[in-house]
């Protein structure tokens, strides 16, 4: 009889167009809208390569060090510096829009007296640009460092040379490959929202099996209440799991969303999410006792929970409130799986979801028994 109930529950829900639109189509549309509209928020800005020049009027050791600092290393990634033979050539290059700016290294850097000033010039076009500002910042930074070392060398009679040391430890948090873009992010959070909508389906099925006219009709048949409830929970889990899989597949193939490589783990998490969501809906029903309006209430509350858990904005805005939403743990675990945030986070997330499932199951059993008593 349990399979009989599951069969007809699934058939009737698949024909409920209003619910399908709310629980599946709506999240898919939101992936498209939010993924397109907010893509710039998620994509790191690409600074175009800056074309610059340098005119070396001094060929001494310190001038060469300064030249190296201005033109080599990581700066090469953003500034391409071309050496010009004369000041006039460099000026012509600016006029012809071949470069944005150039550095002019003066003569006599090595030969100057202690504390004697020499000027390094930055030549730019008369139209201010972000590229010129970048050049100014780079030059300022280098000259400050150069002056500091020069001053130390003079004061302590040290040799007028220094060794460039990088004291900044640069650790990558995420690379281009494992940082979610807008479509990828919203595919996860909207799929989670679709899963959490399952709590409304579960509340409706609980109402239909335990209360109301149809519930009464089912309860006067030969199926026991426990078997009926179990059948309704299983059918809800199947339906919600299907919802999650549909959103997953549509986002993957229609929006080309990144779901990582570990599909089996993603699908397992979707299943756990479906179970958690169904138990969440039923737990609320057994606690409140009057499930008549719970389904409608959840339909309104779920987008709100998605919002405060950071599902729409990428940042949880509800503090502790965000963390107690069913969305939070689920979406963070799936993001950790898809974007490879480390096995510790994935395991921790999955264990947390399973713990929540057990707590919800305990609540359902305890309150359910009290209700029946």
């Amino acid at each position, binding site marked *: *009889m349990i399979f*009989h*109930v599951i069969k*007809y529950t699934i*058939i*009737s*829900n698949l*024909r*409920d167009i209003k619910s399908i639109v709310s629980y599946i189509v709506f999240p898919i549309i939101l992936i498209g809208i939010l993924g397109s509209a907010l893509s710039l928020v998620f994509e790191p800005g690409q600074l175009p390569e800056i074309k610059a020049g340098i005119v070396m009027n001094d060929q001494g050791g310190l001038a060469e060090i300064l030249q190296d600092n201005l033109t080599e290393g990581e700066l090469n990634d953003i500034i391409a510096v071309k050496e010009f033979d004369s000041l006039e050539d460099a000026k012509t290059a600016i006029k012809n829009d071949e470069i944005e700016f150039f550095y002019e290294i003066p003569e006599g850097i090595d030969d100057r007296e202690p504390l004697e000033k020499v000027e390094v010039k930055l030549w730019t076009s008369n139209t201010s640009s972000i590229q010129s500002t970048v050049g100014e910042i780079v030059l300022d930074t280098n000259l400050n460092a150069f002056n500091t070392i020069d001053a130390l060398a003079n004061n302590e009679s040290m040799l007028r040379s220094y060794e460039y040391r990088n004291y900044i430890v640069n650790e990558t948090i995420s690379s281009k490959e494992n940082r979610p873009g807008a479509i990828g992010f919203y595919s996860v959070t909207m799929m989670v929202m679709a899963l959490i909508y399952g709590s409304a389906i579960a509340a409706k099925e609980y109402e239909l099996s335990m209360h109301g*006219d*149809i519930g*009464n*009709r*089912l*309860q*006067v*048949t*030969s*199926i*026991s209440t426990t078997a009926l409830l179990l059948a309704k929970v299983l059918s809800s889990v199947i339906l919600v799991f299907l919802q999650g899989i549909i959103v997953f597949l549509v986002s993957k193939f229609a929006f080309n969303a990144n779901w990582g490589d570990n599909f089996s783990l993603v699908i397992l998490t979707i299943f756990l999410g479906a179970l958690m969501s169904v138990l969440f809906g039923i737990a609320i029903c057994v606690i409140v006792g009057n499930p008549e309006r719970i389904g409608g209430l959840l339909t309104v509350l779920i987008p709100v929970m998605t919002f405060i858990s950071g599902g729409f904005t990428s940042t949880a805005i509800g503090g502790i409130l965000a963390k107690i939403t069913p969305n939070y743990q689920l979406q963070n675990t799936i993001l950790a799986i898809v974007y490879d945030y480390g096995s510790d986070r994935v395991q921790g997330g999955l264990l947390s979801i399973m713990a929540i499932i057990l707590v919800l199951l305990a609540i359902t059993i305890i309150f359910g028994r009290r209700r029946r008593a």
Partner: protein
Amino acid sequence: MSEVILAVNDVTKSYGDNKALKGMSLELKSGEILGLLGPNGAGKSTLINCICGLLKPDSGNLKMFDLDLKDDRQLIEARAKMGVVPQEIALVEELSAYENCMYIGGLYGLKGGELKDSVEEALNFVDLWDRRKDRPGKYSGGMKRRLNIACGLVHKPTLLLMDEPTVGVDPQSRNYILESVRQLNDEGTTVIYSSHYMEEVEALCDHIVIMDLGETVAEGTFSSLIAEVNDTETINISLAKPIDDTKVLAEIDSIPGVTNVENNGTELSVISERGNNNFNEIIAKLGEFKQDFTSIDLARVSLEDVFLDKTGKKLRD
């Protein structure tokens, strides 16, 4: 002698301070149609819900075929022989009529060919087989009621509990439903029929229990209930013209069995003891005095009068 298939003994049920059933007792014999008659709030639905196990009685015993309906395991066994037609339309809107019956039939343990045959039989019985593929949303109110009934009898129950099955239906559908109940009963189904329409109960039921405020106020056959409360009958006569000679009133009053005569213009009411068969004599006296009449009506005592007599209030108050 018919077998007692349902025994309700001193059953009580309260909702907080409201005592919905105050020690209800009744026996139902195989093949009977038992009518539960009473106003809204009399406790009819509560009694039916206690019988089918939707409600647990606070005290008392309920037995069906020696199965204790207060025991969960025995209740489930009894439910296989019990069909329920609830007062509300209890149908799944997203399923067709056929699927609704299949769904409910399967929950009574029917499977495969047996289930399909039973569903076909039930839908034919309520004349909805041709519309089996339609969902309830496409049905009229009367058709929904009929489908509601089909779902209740798809597993061919021995006892059918019908809780106000004609509420809100058109006269044509009501007649259809009443005919169906008669037919089911003729085929051997025992029926408990709850209603606040006395005409339905009067027309259908062999055994009537009149309820009010959670208890039985009268019980018996229709004729025994009528006899119990009133031994007079009223003959209402509309005269062609007002009475010229008041002597005719004295003449009618002197007929054996007549207890009172009232005249108001062309309206004449004669109250007589029941069973005197003095109807013809009254007509003859009018003829003697050349008093023509346009209509004559023997006002029968109804279950309404029984209820009024027992409770001091009208059934539809």
